[in-house]
């Protein structure tokens, strides 16, 4: 199946802003995070189709997955 992956902020460095990816059906968010070699320590927010989700959530064909760094005060 295909999903659209959007990366925000520092996650774009040496990766991409947005791309369509071919992934196995029933893939969990964590699999994409691992494939992209994003550290869970700075993974702050996961959105599936704009709605907050978790790394264990299962993706569906056509989903848009956004990965955002941690938000920290300042």
């Amino acid at each position, binding site marked *: 199946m295909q999903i659209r992956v959007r990366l*925000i*902020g*520092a996650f*774009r*460095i040496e990766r991409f802003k947005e791309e369509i990816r071919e992934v196995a059906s029933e893939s969990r968010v964590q699999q994409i995070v691992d494939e992209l070699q994003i*550290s869970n*320590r*700075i993974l*702050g*927010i996961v*959105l599936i189709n*704009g*709605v*907050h989700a978790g790394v264990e959530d299962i993706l569906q064909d056509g989903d848009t997955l*956004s990965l*955002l*760094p*941690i*938000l*920290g*005060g*300042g």
Partner: protein
Amino acid sequence: MKFLTTDPVAEASSVLYKRCTIDLRSGTTTLEDVPCRNLEDVLGGFGRSFQVLAERKVDNAYSAENPLIVNTGLLTGSSAMTGMRTYFSGYSPIKGSKKGLPSAMWSTGSGKFGAKFKWTGLDELIFENRSETPVYAVIRETAAGPQVELKPAEKLLGLSTHDKIMALQKEYADAHFAVIGQAGENWQNVYMGAVALSTENQLKSGEDKCRFAGRGGMGSLMGYKNIIALVAQSSDKLKSLSPAVKKVNINVVKGGGSTRLQPLSRGGGGGTWAAYDVLQAFHAVPLNNFRPQGNALPEKLCRENVEQDYEIKSEACFRCGITCHNNVYAKNADGSRGEFLAKFDYEPLNLLGSNLGIHDAGQAARLIQLGDNYGMDSISLGVTISYLLAYNERHPEKPLLNGAGFGDYEKIRELVIRAGEGELPEIGKGSMRLSQATGETSYAYHVKGLELPAYQPETNPGYAWAIAGGHMSMATYGLLTREGKSDLDSWVKGITQDKLHMVGFDMIGLCKFFDIANGIGTQMVVDCLKSEFELEITTDDIRAAVRRAFLRGLALELRQGYSKEEFALPAEVYEHPNANIQLPQIATPEFLDELQRRVWAVFEPELEDLSL
């Protein structure tokens, strides 16, 4: 501190702290070892100072009854990473109830002043009354213990924060400094004066890289008292690192709690500046006085765009491995690093940048630098100016002051300079007073008289219960955005249980970035206290003390005349909901009313049990 016990919970009075009280009117100085009343006293910071403030009845921040309390936390100057905080407490000139009474307030900053202060042997310095002439205080370590001396400060008057520090450095070796700028000197017309704290990097490089205790106008209170600077002179007294503290420090840097603040080059999140990217994904970056437009304008100040034209260097406070500072330098024509411009933290960058309609990084940097040099709280300054710009936009026929509008850099720059010089009380006294004067209060972005940080209030109803800085004393600013919580149960729990614990850092002497997610009720803090002072203390003890201290702050607000209606967000938020913000709209009148009811139902019985 003197520890005559290892059990500070059961035997708090067997822990004594060294306090110096200076009567500025008579010049008399009293040094004493004060027994602690409870664990809050032992931990220090606002946990202790608010108990002193609770003993006073203060109707006017600029009055003899209002003390200025300078203290540290238990772990300030210890070998625990980030242990560098100094606290300034008093009744605030800027934050106050509609009844006209000032609110108890504290403000804190890093830099090396706090550690030096602690190493002189002093834990707390209380300034009473007011000096007739400008003075600065020199706190020294001597063989007979700490000594405090007042000196004439006329020669420092009129200098910027940075220039005061550099002037004092020439006279005092092995010392660090806490100073006010011209804004604090002009306390009559500037209620948002900050205290600047010197850093090692600043003293070595000569560049204006102070840290600031900005919130609540403690620099203005210092100015009112005619104290222009503090000098803490002592040898460095860092203990050698014990295996336990070493393990904690490694965990602070590598364990995840501070990763988001660390440099990108180390796999970190790149400091607080990264909030720009995250919030922009929801169109929740404040723009033009907290009215995001759903466009890409804020992206101009995102790091990836700024670094095309400027050099960004990650730097740190003394001995801190988190390295959260993003210092921005001009780039020379040959690509080499040029002049230091400013440190880009999320709050000042946004509130003196996008939220004023300024989208040029160089211009935003100059405004940040100007505010810092004059010694003004960048949050109160930025938000008061953004209110003025919004007013002028609504009243083009009769604008206020110089008629500045959003994005009008030269005019905004003029406002900052004239406010810092004490020539514009309309700006200097903050957004609550300015909006009361215009009669248009709904779009003045303050809560309880203190300007909001750069997280949209639509996303953070918890601001209402923050007892000091909106995002520094209630960690709910990410509850909706980061955690996706939009239900009442989560918000009641967040405000009344989990998120209030962030104030613990403002007791113990550590930076919040030590472990921003978990607060100080953690095994890491327990291990540090055991290793540094042999104290037997549990995470539950610490959490109970933090909660009591928070509740004391809330009780003090109520005592200073705040009505429950003042625990509210700016009215524009619910009167004109902003559909551009792509997050669930929780800040509806119904949600806010129910939240009020349920939060007070938790806090009120506990407040009744708390004796002030």
